[in-house]
C-alpha cells in the first residue's frame, strides 16, 4: 500500500516541524486528503497509527478532512468536480498513484481540452501542527 509512504511523510514532516519550532510535544496533526488522490482513509489512518507507535509517539490527535477536487479548464474556464465513475478502474488507480495522471486520463467535459488546472483537492497535505512549547 502506497498510503504507508504518504503517512510516513506526514509523520516525518511533523517531527521536523516540531523540532524546528521547538515544540516539547506534538498534540495534533491536521491533514487534508485531496479527493483526486483517492486515499483509503482507513488504511491511511492505520499506517499513521503504526508509524506513530513505531516512533514511540503517543497521544497525538490526528484530524483528517477530505477536500473535494475541483478543476478549471485553461481554455474555456469551465469548472467541474471529480467524477471517478467516468474513469475506468485502471485510469482511476493510475490517478491514485500519481494524481497528475488526471491530465492523461481526463479532459474538460465542456470543450474537451486536456489543458486544465487542479484548483483544489489534489493530494495529501498538512494544514496544521499543534503542540506544547
Amino acid at each position: 500500500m502506497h498510503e504507508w509512504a504518504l503517512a510516513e511523510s506526514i509523520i516525518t514532516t511533523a517531527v521536523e516541524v516540531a523540532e524546528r519550532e521547538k515544540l516539547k510535544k506534538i498534540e495534533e496533526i491536521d491533514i487534508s486528503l485531496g479527493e483526486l488522490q483517492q486515499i483509503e482513509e482507513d488504511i491511511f489512518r492505520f499506517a499513521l497509527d503504526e508509524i506513530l507507535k513505531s516512533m514511540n509517539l503517543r497521544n497525538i490527535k490526528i484530524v483528517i478532512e477530505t477536500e473535494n477536487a475541483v478543476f478549471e479548464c485553461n481554455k474555456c474556464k469551465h469548472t467541474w468536480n471529480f467524477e471517478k465513475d467516468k474513469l475506468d478502474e485502471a485510469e482511476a488507480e493510475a490517478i491514485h498513484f500519481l494524481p497528475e495522471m488526471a491530465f492523461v486520463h481526463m479532459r474538460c467535459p465542456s470543450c474537451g481540452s486536456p489543458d486544465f488546472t487542479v484548483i483544489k483537492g489534489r493530494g495529501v497535505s498538512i494544514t496544521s501542527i499543534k503542540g506544547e512549547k
Partner: protein
Amino acid sequence: MVDPRLSVIKKRLKDINNIIAVASGKGGVGKSMVSSLLALHLASQDKKVGLLDLDVYGPSTHIILGIPFQKFPEEDRGIIPPVFHGIKFMSIVFYSEDKPGAFRGIDVSNIIRELLAITQWGSLDYLIIDLPPGIGDETLDVINLIQPTEFLIVSTPSKVAMGAVEKLIDLLLELHLPIIGVVENMKIGDSNYVKQIVTSKDVRYLGSIQFVPALEEAIGDSSKLLKTPFIKDLERIIKKSL
C-alpha cells in the same frame, strides 16, 4: 499548508551510493540512450542499479530497453520499482499507459515529488536519472531535491547542440554542482570543437561515442544493445569517469 513529501525524499534515497543525472541543454542528443545503456552496462557488471525516467513528456527509456509497462508496480509501504534486465526501473509510463499528458510546470514538479516520495529504491550502487532537455522544472527539481547528484552531460558535435549545452554547463558551474563530464555522442569526423569548449570551462571531456546507424535495430533488445559499438565506447568512458 505543508508539503509532506519533501521530508521523506532524502530517506528514500539514503541507501544509494551514487546518483547520476544524465542531462543536456538540447534535445535529441541521445541522453536517454546514454542513461539506458549506462544502467544496462552497470547492471551487467553486477552493480545494483536503478533507472528513473524523469522525461515526463516523452519518456523513452522503456522503449530503448524493451520494458513492458502494462502492469502497475507492486506496493509495499510505497512503490517497489520492478526489475528488468537487472535494473530497478521507474517511469510515469507505468501510470500513463504511454499516452500524452498536458502537464504544466507545477504538475511536472508534483509528478517528480510524488515519484521521489513513494518509490522505495532500497540499496543501490547507482541511480541513473534520465532528464529531459533544458534547464526546466525537472532539472531544477533534481538540483533542489536530490543531493548530492552528479551530472553527466551529453552533447553531439553540433554547434547548435553545444550552444544549449554550454548554458547548462554554465548554470551547473555557477551553482557549484558536481559535473562528471561531457560525453560527445553521435560523433562523425574528427572535429575538436566540443572538446575545446568543454575543457576551456575546466570541465572534463570524457570522450566520444561514434555515430552508429545500426543502433536503431537494437532498440528494445537489451542483449543486442550490449553488443553494439555504442556500449564499447560508453564502457571506455565509464572506466575513466565512474
